[in-house]
């Protein structure tokens, strides 16, 4: 199902997305919980804050209609696929990067928040993980930081920022 990030972050169309920086605006849906854990992709409750009535769509798109009929009316969570889910052996802390490391969302996630259409989800048949993790070519050549997010990429960024200590095994593989 498609989700139009650009439309939802447009202050002329959608009210209530607060924040001065782009990162803060991302956080209004992809929030940190009180205990510091990252909520990830928001649950249906977040969408229901505005789209609460399955009978009255807020726009004219067929996607919204599908969303209202299939998910809001049935009270079903949308089974979103995650482009950025790391393997289970990796312990990744968003708050360490966003708050402590002062990183923007775009540094790792690119212009995802500005897209009108969600990019196609391509998954590795063997591992079940998205191509955004594995990278689009085997040589590991990438134009943007977000083209590949394997261990070497994490290490590369840590080294560049003078945080080589963070490359110790136990930091990520708890």
């Amino acid at each position: 199902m498609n989700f139009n990030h650009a439309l939802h972050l447009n202050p002329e169309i959608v009210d209530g997305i607060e924040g001065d920086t782009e990162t803060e605006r991302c956080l209004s849906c992809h929030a940190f919980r009180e205990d510091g854990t990252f909520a990830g992709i928001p649950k249906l409750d977040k969408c229901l804050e505005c789209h609460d009535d399955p009978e009255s769509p807020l726009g004219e798109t067929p996607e919204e209609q599908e969303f209202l009929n299939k998910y809001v009316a049935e009270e079903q969570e949308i089974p979103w696929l995650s482009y950025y889910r790391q393997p289970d052996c990796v312990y990744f802390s968003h708050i360490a990067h966003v708050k402590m490391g002062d990183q923007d969302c775009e540094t790792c996630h690119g212009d995802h928040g500005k897209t009108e259409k969600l990019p196609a989800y391509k998954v590795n048949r063997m591992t079940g993980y998205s191509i955004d993790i594995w990278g689009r070519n085997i040589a590991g050549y990438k134009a943007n930081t977000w083209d590949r997010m394997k261990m070497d990429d994490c290490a590369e960024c840590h080294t560049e920022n003078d945080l080589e200590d963070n490359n110790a095994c136990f930091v990520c593989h708890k």
Partner: protein
Amino acid sequence: MEINRRHFIALLVGGAAGINATPLPWKFTDDIAIWTQNWPWVPVPPTGEFSHVKSVCTLCPGGCGIEVRKVDDRAVKIEGRTDYPVNPGGICPLGMGGLQLLYNESIRFTGPMKRVGPRGSGKFIAITWDEALSTIADRISDLRKQERPEALAAIDGNPTMSTMALMIERLLRAVGSPNYVRIPSAEETCRMTNLVMQGTEGPMAYDLENADYILSFGSGLLEGWGAPGRVMNAWGLWHEHTAKRKARVVQIESRASNTASKADQWLAPKPGTEAALALGLAHVIIKDHLYNADFVDAYSFGFNNWVSSDGKNHMGYKTMVLNSYSPDQVAEITGLRPKDIVSLARDFAGAKAPIATCGKGKGYLNGSLYEFMAVQSLNALVGNINMLGGVLVCDPPPLSPLPEIQKDTIASEGLKKPRLDHAGSRRYPFSKSLIGDLAKTIIKSPKSPVNTLLVFSANPDFTLPDGGAFREALKKVPFIVSFSPYQDETSYMADLILPDHTYLEKMDDVVWPTGLQYPLYGISKPVVKPVYATKNSGDVIMRLAKRIGGSVGSSFPWKKYDDVLKERAKGLFDAQAGQVHYDGSVPAWKRLRERGSVTPDYKTFDDMWKEIKAGGLWYLPVHAYKNWERLFKTPTGKFEFFSTRIELAFDDYTLKISEETALKNMGITEKGDAVFMPHYEPALSDADRSAYPLLMMPYEMINLASGWTPNPPYLNKTIFDNQLRKDESFAEINPKTASKYGLKEGDRVIIKSPTGTVRVRVNLFEGAMPGIVYLPLGFGHTAYDEFSRGKGVNPNDIIHMGQDPLSGHPVWWNTPVQLIKV
């Protein structure tokens, strides 16, 4: 071109080298690394939002507070609550394993079921709630139309003052049946003891934390007695090595249980002779003038000899004890040494706040009424009734009574019929339920007088220490309905299953955790949404009543079960006493000691109810100590060493029959005035002791569920190899006894009683009393799943059940057995 071997090898090598130059092997290896972590059987829980739900555990009557950690909607861990007065952060292994009772499809009923295979086979098909309710409602209505509503009976394992117990009994009485039968328990024996000696029907409220000497008559203080979270915390308090607080713990038990092993002193009298020991201690205390004369002289009755209004001379407690229970006499009976009895008595009486506790093992199984009376008489002798650090006499939480039950003519007539278990009859005047006699009545009658049997929160097929008698009775009952959420043995014998929620899925109350020394009302609330299509049995009873209609329906004027709980709680508010918040820094027992005041910490009833639901707690940590003038509600107004209530009941019984016959029927061997006082009754058996020279004693472990709740598989991991190995359980036998039969460690042996046989392996244990074979309770299931079924043997199957004198309750501590080496 010719393909010869050389070309073939070249092709292979070239191919291999070529493949390495492609991305294939590198990508493949990388992917395999991740793929091996994602096999479907590797448990990786989904991520989600963390939350905590506070509730109260109801797996045993202890009522420890629990905190359940959840990830999104799934409960993942149960821990003890630090902010609950019963158990400061403590929890027992069964409580911790509770999630395995919730999320276990292989042992739960996922919805209403109808039996399709033979009884005991466990073959059921799913039916709708509508069909299930109609089936029973129609059946009960038919019984009423035939004017025999008393053919409906119910077995209830819910705690005595709980709302569920009230609802079940209410249903039976509204229908018109007096046959509401409860599972026998130590609490019931305590109630009867208090009734005949103090005139109060409350539980034994032991002020353990403030006591400085604990004389435990077999109570499994570390085996799960009372509220385990509380008792283990108290144990810690007792053993704090400060000059101020060092309490002494003495365990009286024939076997070196964990409690006995860790107590300060362990004495092992022969099983069944504990009453003699208690009275032997009384002898020394009286002889040496160590008793509390203030209390005994002014506030007790029957201590000295007395003359009744008809001019008859009566022997008092003092004379009886001094004549018949000298240390030498008691040593003969119990097997202990006289000097140990003397020093124990002096230690007990010399302590500032000594408590003698009763209720063996976990305190689930009933005790002997005369024995409990003997133990309680010790507490009275030292004047520690209703004193700080003693046995308190409390009022139960002031819950509102429920409205009157509506009874039509059919119901009134039915209720006039005598109970099928003869409880409360002239023969068993103090007992409220006698399930053993119910089984006997059913078995003896050509046609079962019970037509429809409802079973709630109980698994009598497995847990009753009756050598399988109840199971035989079940076979004869035409229609059995089980409300158990679990696929237990009794449910397998049932024809219809209306499964309840598990304790983590419903709201229910906890009225006074076992043995607590102040009134406490807890609310256990749902932690997760119901996992399966089960329904709260309280709601089901109300729906059933409405379907039956008439006066039965109008006896349940509530919409849902939660409303009943709320209505009862109104009384707590009206009493304007008690608090709903607990500050862990001041434990309740300390507040009792400091005798502060307790003012309500809520304004309106709705406030209070909201707080109770949130925190699960209402409690009153204040007590009016002493108060001996107004405390006892006996006919004499005093603590009765000589129970006038027993005397009155006996007089009533002997109006039509001779004293000898009466005593024989009640199972009492003693004669004369001693009958009305605590005394030692030797446990009689009809078995031929030359053929069955040994005794079998069951014992309980804290890490093995032995009541009606199933055993969480986690706990299996804590069982030692010399208790259960593969599918065989072990019997603990003293090496001396074992060598008489030529038995070595691990040998297979058959234990045979007059009632049955079991096959076990031998565990040589010095802590086992010679001549006694000990079997753990909790093994030998024939239902549930592969973690319980077929593992070990159930000692209840071979218990040669006797009947306790005066109470008629099961005697499970006197099973003569023989050993046959395999």
